[in-house]
């Protein structure tokens, strides 16, 4: 393409000064051109000038139409973006296949895009309808439905304005000019050629002929971004008036990473824990969904919680939301309440119930008052004031009251960006309010869903102006001349772009009517033309591409002139700020730290759990007991594993209290109804007790009762196969075991006395049960500990494994047949249980002493870490991290 030899910018300024509205294909160019004019005025020292009117064609048409409406209010109203989207959605969902689509909103956008394309390219709808394909048939159907709804509402959509631009009355006072660009669609171009005269030709960069072109092949996508940022940063530092245009075609996907890379170089303050500076020397086209900004997200989270039941994590997040707590102290109160709730909460409940439960727990547990809870309750109250179906304008008022009472209550803490996003939200609510006719009445949930969609679909960006570095997400001619121009992602797979026709429209028609992306040849021509333009636009042009993150090499696009200087390959650049910190890292101090102070008189052990942990790993014993490092609980539907264990224990306690021993059991088994009644009663009492602490709801109580009754039946069957015994002791009270001068409180499940006076100690296990009491460092020293407390006449100890997968005794016994089918065990070669008890006593004493003395070395048994949650705290080294030497810790004296 040939550009105007006369300096294009002068022509543009001339047109603007003459009061012409300059029409451009998109808002990005509008902003850039406006800025260029202003900078030019500044350079030439002008003090004042008419504000240039540079508009994107679509927006201008819409404004023009709205203005004309003031004069003629009978003209159909132009739909807002949200209304259009919703009407399309409606049209899609009303169709037969609509609700089967994975993403009906996506289909609606596709249809909307197709309709716009039809207008932009002048494709006759009849030709689409005649295509015969399923996609076009569906589109035709939706389109018809959409158009009918528009007629019904007396509205037009933006695409129609474009199609009927010729027919629309021109505002006489307004004269237009337009810029030459490959982005114009045929219909707009024809209109512009007709009404706007000759286009303003693009600006050429100064040293075009010698323009150095560079290519950069980066080793990863991150490295590519880092290279661009460094390039921009260096140039800007050398020459503050440097201006660059960067084209990043996959911007939508890489936006976050791009921001990270650019901020690190150009606005490092944004990585400090300071209030962020508002300005930056770069801007990125487009925006991110409004719904992503904190005030909006918090508002949406609140609304989402009002619809139906919500799971605990959702309530927890809401309660602890930063928007609801004014200070760290308030946040800490909310966290405290959350911790209490975790052991008492059902898996899910409606917000009203959550609030009531939280209030009850707060007062019962005598916690600090939780300001967040008050705010949340107030917000909830406002939001549920209105019930039934209403127009959106009514819901709006309720929402606002809810937000004001809840997440927006502390809005004085908002940053500038947050405030701006809330402002945009306000505008959007205003737009929604205009749509009552279009949206009709909606239930609360439907209104919430609509709002959510609207907020997700509305991009937002805090005001930035046009800074020196502009990042565009489109392949386009920037029209203006820049000092530097960088086109990223120029690998052979993406440049020229592969064919990408507009969905829903027949490809054949698209090609016929000039949709560039629909044809191979047109894509190639477009790319070649555009690349030529780029080279003319900047005095320095860089093309780049990057190997994939997984290391697949990328080949540069064949369109990049072979003569370009390949440039230095940028090294893999991690985040420059991170690197900077790493480079000036201090020498790390190392000191032995395996001993905590000896166990204090005012400290308490956790009973057998302490010894169990200590045995597996001294650090674990220390951390779990003395630091009280416990995992966060998480409410699950139904009873959790621990509760199920407690239920079995509790039920069996009731049962054996009634049965008394093998004789009682035999009698009961002979009268099944009686046994069933006894069991049901025991189960019922156990469940009642458990549910008083945490009630998972009726259904789960019933399910558990049924399960438990079956399970106990199985267990009793096994017990009935034993010889005679009397239950001598049931887990009623806690006892204290004393070792190494420490007290361990324990609850022994059961001791049976056999006819010969010997005793058997049984501990129920509802999970896996194995012989984990063996060895110098037993996984679980529970049975030894219990046995030592009641060693008199003890001839066997056992776990009673009670679970649906199977009931069994896992025992250590000096006689055979104490438990059905079980022989005497090896007892670690000790010959008698009494002798084994002596060994156990030594082990327990040693463990207890180790714990008492404060030994907290990280020295796990080979399997201990697999079931431990403390990896992050103990900092056990990695096997494979070669950068950290495996050091033997020096033992402290």
């Amino acid at each position, binding site marked *: 393409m040939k550009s105007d030899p006369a300096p294009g910018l002068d022509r543009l300024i001339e047109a603007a000064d003459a009061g012409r509205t300059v029409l451009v294909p998109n808002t990005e160019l509008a902003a850039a051109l406006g800025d260029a004019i202003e900078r030019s*005025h500044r350079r030439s020292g*002008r003090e004042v000038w008419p*504000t240039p009117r540079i508009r994107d064609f679509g927006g201008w048409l819409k404004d023009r139409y709205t203005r004309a409406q003031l*004069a003629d209010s009978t003209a159909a*109203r132009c739909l807002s973006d949200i209304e259009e989207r919703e009407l399309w959605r409606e049209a899609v969902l009303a169709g037969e296949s609509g609700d089967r689509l994975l*993403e009906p909103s996506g289909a609606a956008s596709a249809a909307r895009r197709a309709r716009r394309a039809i207008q932009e390219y002048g494709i006759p709808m009849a030709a689409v309808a005649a295509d015969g394909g*399923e996609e076009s048939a569906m589109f035709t159907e939706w389109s018809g439905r959409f158009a009918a709804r528009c007629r019904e509402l007396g509205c037009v959509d933006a695409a129609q304005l474009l199609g009927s631009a010729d027919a629309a009355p021109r505002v006489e006072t307004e004269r237009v000019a337009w810029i030459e660009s490959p982005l114009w669609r045929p219909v707009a171009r024809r209109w512009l050629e007709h009404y706007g005269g000759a286009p303003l030709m693009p600006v050429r960069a100064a040293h075009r002929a010698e323009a150095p072109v560079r290519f950069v092949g980066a080793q990863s996508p991150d490295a590519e971004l880092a290279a661009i940022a460094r390039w921009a940063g260096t140039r800007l530092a050398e020459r503050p008036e440097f201006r660059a245009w960067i084209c990043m075609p996959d911007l939508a996907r890489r936006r*976050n990473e791009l921001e990270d890379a650019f901020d690190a170089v150009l606005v490092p*303050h944004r*990585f*400090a*824990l*300071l*209030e962020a500076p508002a300005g930056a020397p770069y801007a990125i086209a487009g925006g991110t969904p409004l719904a992503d900004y*904190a005030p909006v997200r918090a508002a949406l989270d609140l609304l989402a919680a009002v619809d139906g039941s919500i799971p605990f994590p959702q309530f927890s997040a809401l309660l602890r939301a930063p928007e609801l707590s004014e200070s760290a102290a308030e946040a800490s109160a909310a966290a405290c309440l*959350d911790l209490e709730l975790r052991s008492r909460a059902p898996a899910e409940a409606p917000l009203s119930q959550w609030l009531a439960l939280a209030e009850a727990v707060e007062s019962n547990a005598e916690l600090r008052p939780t300001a967040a809870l008050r705010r949340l309750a107030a917000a909830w109250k406002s939001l549920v004031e209105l019930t039934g179906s209403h127009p959106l304008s009514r819901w709006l008022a309720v929402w606002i009251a809810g937000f004001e009472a809840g997440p927006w209550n502390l809005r004085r803490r908002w940053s500038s960006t*947050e*405030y701006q996003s809330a*402002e945009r939200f*306000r505008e959007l609510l205003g*737009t929604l309010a205009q749509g009552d006719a279009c949206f009709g009445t909606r239930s609360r949930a439907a209104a919430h869903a609509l709002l959510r969609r609207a907020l997700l679909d509305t991009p937002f960006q805090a005001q930035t102006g046009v800074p020196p570095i502009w990042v565009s997400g489109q392949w386009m001619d920037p029209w203006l001349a820049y000092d530097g121009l960088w086109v990223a992602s120029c690998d052979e*797979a*993406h440049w020229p*772009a592969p064919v990408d026709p507009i*969905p829903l429209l027949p*490809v054949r028609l698209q*090609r016929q009517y000039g949709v560039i992306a629909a044809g*191979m040849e047109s894509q*190639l021509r477009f790319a070649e033309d555009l690349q030529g333009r780029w080279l003319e636009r900047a005095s320095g042009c860089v093309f780049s591409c990057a190997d994939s993150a997984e290391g*697949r090499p990328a080949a540069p696009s064949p369109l990049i002139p072979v003569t370009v200087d390949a440039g230095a390959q940028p090294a893999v650049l991690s985040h420059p*700020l*991170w*690197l900077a910190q*790493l480079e000036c890292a*201090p020498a790390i*101090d*190392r*000191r032995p*730290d395996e001993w905590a102070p000896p166990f204090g008189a005012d400290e308490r052990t956790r009973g057998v759990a302490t010894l169990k942990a200590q045995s597996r790993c001294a650090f674990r014993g220390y951390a779990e007991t003395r630091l*009280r*490092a416990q*995992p*966060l609980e998480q409410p*699950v539907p139904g009873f959790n594993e621990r509760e199920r264990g407690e239920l079995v224990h509790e039920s069996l306690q009731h049962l054996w209290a009634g049965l008394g021993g093998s004789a009682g059991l035999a009698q009961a088994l002979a009268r099944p109804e009686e046994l069933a009644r006894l069991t049901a009663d025991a189960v019922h009492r156990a469940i009642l007790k458990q549910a008083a602490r945490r009630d998972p709801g009726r259904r789960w109580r019933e*399910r558990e009762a049924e*399960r438990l009754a079956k399970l106990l039946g199985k267990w009793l069957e096994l017990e009935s196969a034993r010889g005679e015994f009397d239950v001598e002791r049931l887990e009623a009270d806690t006892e204290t075991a004393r070792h190494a001068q420490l007290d361990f409180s324990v609850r022994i499940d059961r001791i049976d006395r056999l006819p010969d006076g010997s005793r058997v100690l049984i501990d129920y296990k509802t999970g896996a049960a194995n*012989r984990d009491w063996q060895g110098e460092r037993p996984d679980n020293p529970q049975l030894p500990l219990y046995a030592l407390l009641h060693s008199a006449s003890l001839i066997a100890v056992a776990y009673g494994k009670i679970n649906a*997968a199977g009931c069994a005794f896992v025992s250590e016994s000096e006689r055979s047949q104490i438990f059905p089918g079980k022989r005497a065990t090896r007892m670690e070669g000790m010959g008698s249980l009494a002798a084994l008890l002596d060994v156990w006593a030594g082990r327990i004493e040693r463990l207890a002493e180790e714990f008492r003395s404060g030994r907290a070395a990280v*020295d796990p048994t080979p399997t201990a870490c697999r079931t431990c949650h*403390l*990896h992050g*705290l103990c*900092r*056990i080294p*990695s*096997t494979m991290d*070669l950068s950290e030497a495996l*050091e*033997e810790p*020096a033992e402290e004296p």
Partner: protein
Amino acid sequence: MSRSLPRDSEARTHAVHDDASVLVQAPAGSGKTTLLTQRYLRLLASVDAPERILALTFTRRAAEEMRQRVIAALAAAALAECPPGFNAETWRLAVGARERLGTLGIDVQRQPSRLRIETIDSFNFWLASQLPIVSGVGGRLNVVGVARSFYEEAARRALAHEGTDLFAAAVERTLAVGDQRWRQLVGLIAGMLAGRDRWLPLLAGRLEAAAALDAAQLDRVREHFDEDLALLVTRGLQAARDALGGEGLASLPPLMRAAARRLGAERPELAAWLARPGALAADATDLERWRTVADTFLTKGGQLRKRFTRTEGFPPQCPERDAMIDLSAQFERRPGAAAALQAVRALPEPRYRDEDWIRVRDVAQVLVLAAAELDEVFRERATVDFAAVSLAGLRALGAEGSPTDLALRLDYRLQHLLLDEFQDTSGAQLELVRMLTLGWQRGDGRSVFCVGDPMQSIYGFRQAEVRAFLELAETGIGDLELDVRRLSSNFRSSPALVQWVNACFERIMPQVDDRQRGAIAFRPSDSEVEASFDVARAVSLRGFMSAAAEAKAVAELIESRRTEHPEWRIAILVRARAHARDIALALRGRGIPFRAVDIEPLQDRAVVRDLVMLIRALIHLGDRTAWLAVLRAPWSGLPLSELLTIARSGSIVWDSVCDEAVLRALSAEGAERCRRLRKIFEDAFRVQTHTSLVRWVERSWLALGGPACATDERGLAHVRTVFARLRELGEQGLPDAAELERHFADLYADGGAAGAVEIMTIHKAKGLEFDLVVVPGLDRHARQDASQLLLTHQFARTGRDGMIMAARPAVGAGTDRLFEFLRTQARDASALEAQRLLYVACTRAKAELHLYAAVGLHEDPDAAPGENSEESPDVRAPRAGSLLAVLWPTVGGQFVIEAQGASGNLDTPALRGGPLRRVPAGWAPPPVADGQPAVMLRAADLREEAPIFDWVGETARRVGSLVHAELQSMDLEIHYDAAARGPHFARWLALNGVPREHLREASERAIAALIAVRADPRGRWILEQRHRDDFREHAVSGYWRGEVMRAVFDRSFIDEHGVRWVIDYKTSRHAGSGLEEFLEREVERYRPQLERYAELARRLGPEPVRVGLYFPLMRAWREWEPGQS
């Protein structure tokens, strides 16, 4: 160096040049990609557009490689001669392709995207996005790689389903069968959802997840299942018949009848022989009699009986006893007879029992429900997983009866399809191929080219269908038959190695292909490599008495070879990640650098672990473990004693850190460290909502000095991976703090120096080659999926795919024949796959292969805590499921057993904690930027504005806009009937969102204002037409204090006194008393704005400037001379 023509050159020529469709079996090292490239180039020379050829691969790397090879070949074809080192055949084919493209005027080198060489996933994605409606997708897909949290959410929702419908009942029963173990069920269902593209189409009709299964549908499904089950049983019996031989079977009936008569009620099942006295039929209806045969001839242990007794119905001296013994001996002589009878024993009933069926039905319902819930979850989050893309791709191709015509839809006519790694094809992918080639016929100018090596099929866990390869060879795709070509040349491994592999695997792997079992026969290769390697060293097999001894030996071997051959690429290939740990420790012990590829969980790295703890602490103030960890991490480094002081002072660690009294109880240094931390967290909490979660965490981490605590740049790269995952999690909805860590568990470190020894899984090594390969830990077994909710078994049958399913029996219930049967099938399949896995491992080696095992373990390092029994430390027989068990029967004798280390006195690698590491006292990271940021926010004034939104304000705003607009066009000279414009106003206001109840009042207010303005002398003065510089809505700009200032003057003119007026309309309203005060406030509010305007206005000319505020709704006016507040 290779000789000029490989031994299998004929097969290669056919594979490349045949017009027909071809299936190529290309074993390890046979140059598969070269062949694919050649075929592609050959086809390129025959089509009218490159898009007519579609080449599909499994991995992006493979697609990339093939594309590069094609492009390189086309580039080379521009040269007059084949460049040195370039494959001459490839070059020749490329010349042809280049010429053809040139004739067509197509320059693919300028537009390589015209070469459709892509992965199956991306092809599916393309299909679905091009055909959003038929594919059922709707819009553009946002595909996530890790969707586990979505599956779990869907499973949770499905299990929470209540109501009175079929689903609810199914959920209830499934929970009961699963012992109400909710968490486990969620895990099982979630696990199945990942592979739903395999079972969903079969369960819920064609590809519709959301459809409930109604009773009629269920009946139909059961009918199918019954048919398939019967067919499968029949096939089992047929196999038994073939194995036992017709002759022997023919002599059975009288013998069995005799036993039946003799035993009568003792073995009632034998009565079937009396009721049906004839010959055994290899038919499901005769299963009962077959079972009695199996029970009669087999011992409990599954051996053929040598003796028969009364128990079997043949007491001593009975006339049939000798015949039975003879018959048994006859069976014994037939290979596979005992196994066949064993298989008969395991056969399930040929029809679903009601209770089995109910369980299958329930689980099916729950799974379909979960799949529907998953769709809903995807809809809410606007994302999908790869399975959804695969299902969508299939839908896009249409139903079988009415396939979508891609040519019609997309103007896309496909002529040739090439498929790489065909052995890894899943059922869904196979279906895709079938749909793409529907209607293709031999000789119609269209072709399919599949290449792969079924001997390397090791992705059963990813639903790869190894049977597909055999099916394709036997029956083709649709109506299309494929010519099978087998390559045998190996360009990778030395002759000695190839010979060993041939000899060994010939005996390990099946002799013949078996479609039913998915058994692949071994086919030997010929090495085309000239023997420059040390033959004696080619293969070594060693057994050790402990894992430690084994690890030590591996390290020694590698150390010596690295000295001898520093240029060698050496790999240690393990079956499961956990197996690499001991070896890594041993290598470290000797200072051998290694690179563990995707072996080590990222969270094992200190820098990552500290960061994850920080994230947990930041997102939950009450996460005690995380907070303590943050205090102990190097950036703070509190020792145990000080942690204790803090931990004991309150339940929320953060509160204690904030409590000066607590800090005073610490050492001075400890307190200082805490204060620094506190300040950082206070700052962090203050700006928490200002940026995204990820940025917030990063800022906090930087402030703490996180990067400075990393040991090297690799560590920072790992941190980057964590941040990327955190971003994903944030976008998907951050999980509860209690769950967070789990969401990083599938990330693995990839670290180590280039040129180091590589440690990787055998799966990861597929497609790679190394000079030396060590496969240690052969004795270890891979953990199998212990429990599955639903087992499926698919098989070929005429007319449609056969399939049966069995649901897991209730927890604790006895075994279930059908379920066990399917489990056996699955076990058989994985045993076969283990053989192939070993084959893959062995064929990675070029020069040396070392196979190591610990054969005398004291304890099982894979066992769960306490699982180890009290077994004595003898040499063990290989465990079932281990690779050693695969090798042992064949080459067990070749293992050299090293007795060293039997006593366990070798250092068993054990990990211990190191010293406390921490930054020096008083250290703080350098600030990320100097000084204060240049431009601070100016939100303070905005923040005070309240409330955000109210109706009165909104309506007033619209009335204001209306009046504003009317004033701009109002001409005093022209008659203006404001009242008559009432309906127009009302409509305009309504269009612009004024609620109906406010319409009348609002429109009246506008009318009143406009009438009043015209009547108001001040209003008339403002609107009057002047001659000089008379503007309405005049937009001007200028620079002021370094920034562009823009203004729109509502009204501006030069009056008769030569004063330039700048007037702004304000549509504020004030009711009641205090109007003056209100107006004064308004003036103050707008003064800065008007002052700026005046600044611009002064530059328009030399005239003095005055500014005014006009309030049309109140007819109030305020004016002043700017610059004089």
